[in-house]
């Protein structure tokens, strides 16, 4: 066999070179938009984060220090982190249980799946009034609580606002994660269950020995996607309490909005860069997890994607 170096010279990627312009033509509109709308201005934001508010004077890390020292930032960061830590395990657990239950009943599955997914479609804004009536001090939830003899709570204007936020978030997002779990479950080879059944393994054994290990890759994917989705919880917070919520649900987005209103561009830039770094680290984690077993994939399989393949293959 020819030595590798020699081979490379005699193996120019002719076809690719010949058509090398084509993919870039396809990419051009998107690249243009992304550059103009995101990349270039973000570069500008990075630059501004080291300058004073008017953008004239270099201030080093002063903006960053100011952001870190800002008590409101600390509160918002703490709340956002706390929300993620409380909400994501609950979300993962509920959605997994729903997926497993749904998987156990093959018939009438469609109706349940649909009902669990509907909240994704419901605009947060249309629920505002209902939520106020339910969670108000004189609201519906307190009536129910009264039945069991507890005293009423002002849900939205106390620490329990956090609980309401978690509940709302779960209500809206449980279907999303459930779909991911379901596709993870469907990617487990059914022959495994059948052979385990022949070997006399009960449902619990089958669950712990086949289902759970088979879902590990999905677990990582779902976790990280949920984590990144949890940054969007501002919507639910705004639904619950508008621009000036109780301290317990004051999120980073509230803070950014306030900075925006007061045109604290320097702080916003520093904050954005900080967020970008944090998210980027999370993504690196995601990359590592996604890339860790190339054979198995993420465990999430897409039926329709397989469908396209099969449709084209068979026809």
């Amino acid at each position, binding site marked *: 066999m020819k030595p590798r170096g020699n*081979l490379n010279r*005699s*193996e120019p990627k*002719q*076809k690719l070179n010949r*058509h090398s312009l084509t993919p870039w033509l396809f990419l051009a509109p998107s690249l243009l938009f992304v550059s103009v709308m995101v990349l270039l201005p973000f570069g500008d934001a990075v630059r501004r984060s080291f300058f004073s508010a008017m953008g004239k004077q270099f201030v080093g890390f002063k903006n960053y220090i100011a952001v870190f020292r800002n008590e409101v930032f600390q509160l918002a960061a703490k709340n956002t982190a706390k929300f993620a830590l409380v909400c994501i395990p609950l979300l993962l657990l509920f959605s997994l249980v729903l997926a497993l239950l749904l998987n156990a009943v093959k018939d009438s599955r469609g109706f349940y799946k649909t009902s669990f997914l509907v909240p994704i479609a419901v605009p947060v804004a249309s629920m505002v009034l209902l939520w106020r009536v339910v969670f108000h001090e004189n609201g519906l939830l307190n009536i129910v609580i009264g039945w069991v003899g507890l005293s009423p709570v002002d849900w939205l204007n106390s620490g329990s606002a956090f609980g309401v936020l978690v509940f709302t978030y779960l209500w809206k997002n449980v279907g999303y994660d459930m779909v991911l779990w379901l596709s993870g479950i469907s990617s487990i080879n059914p022959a495994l269950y059948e052979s385990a059944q022949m070997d006399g393994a009960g449902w619990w054994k089958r669950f712990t020995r086949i289902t759970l290990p088979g879902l590990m890759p999905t677990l990582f994917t779902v976790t990280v996607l949920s984590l990144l989705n949890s940054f969007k919880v501002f919507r639910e917070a705004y639904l619950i309490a508008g621009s000036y919520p109780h301290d317990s649900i004051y999120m980073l987005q509230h803070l950014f909005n306030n900075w925006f209103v007061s045109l604290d561009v320097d702080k916003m830039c520093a904050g954005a860069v900080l967020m970008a770094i944090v998210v980027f680290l999370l993504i690196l984690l995601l990359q590592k997890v996604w890339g860790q077993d190339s054979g198995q994939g993420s465990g999430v399989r897409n039926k329709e994607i397989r469908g396209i393949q099969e449709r*084209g293959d068979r*026809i």
Partner: protein
Amino acid sequence: MPNQNIVIDKANKYYPGGVHAVNNMSMEISEGEFVVFVGPSGCGKTTLLRMIAGLEDIHGGTISMGGRVLNDVAPKDRDMAMVFQNYALYPNMKVYDNIAFPLKMRKAKKVEIDAAVREVARKLDLEQLLERRPGALSGGQRQRVALARAMVRKPKLFLMDEPLSNLDAKLRVQMRREIVGLQSELGVTTIYVTHDQTEAMTMGDRIAVMRDGVLQQFDTPEVIYDRPANLFTAGFIGSPPMNVWPLGEGFPLPPGMTPPDRATHAGIRPEFIVPADEPDRQAVQMRVRGVERTGRETLVFLEREGLPDLAMAAGSDFDARPGDSMRVRLRTEALRFM
């Protein structure tokens, strides 16, 4: 118009990881010929076909057609049509539009397209199916549509990549004949890839036997069957394959027969091994190890200590049972050397 011979000159293809998929391949295919590339999977036959089509780049060497080097010509400008193993019909288009697609892409006039589509549909018996979508067709019908799409614009070259492998056995035989008939009727040069030696033998004007990216033999089916160039071809073509043994071992050569200088093996096809009478002095006593009846013939597998195992093809009425002992003779005029 100059002849449209395909000339493959020292073509090479490397895959990442150092696999030399096509190794210094050279051959010339005449205009109007039906050539079959055959070999086990991984032998480079499909890769070579795709290089001719322009779907794979060529790493050294040239492929030309009618004297025009194709290496840098885009697939669409090569004037070839290909039939894929999975047919590659566009699921979103009706049969009519599938067949019309190549003409539309070449900006033919609507009237001409319609005439051409109807003509090819008539030829392939697809007239009833033109308004259906590929998803609603049977495998054989899809196969026909794929052929029609390839034929409709009268290309200079047909490329077929295992087009029959997804059909059931009976349909395969029928389509085999049909393709050969269409090809000779149209007179379009055709390169046909298959791993099935029966297809190769029955369809090709010439057969290119390949293995590990190297061309083993390129000749007519008769020559390939009768005079395999090497052990690989001897073993790959024919079922059961040729009986072979190293020179100097096994059966002695008849007096007066001298093998060519470079030959290392002798071989003989199963049908040239015949039962022998008692007084025949050339005959050997062998034991029957197994018997296979195909209906048309009886295959008898023979063994004897110190001799190579032999496969013998006898008539369907031939009677033998495992464990039997019998005398057989080699018809030495059919001995081949390689």
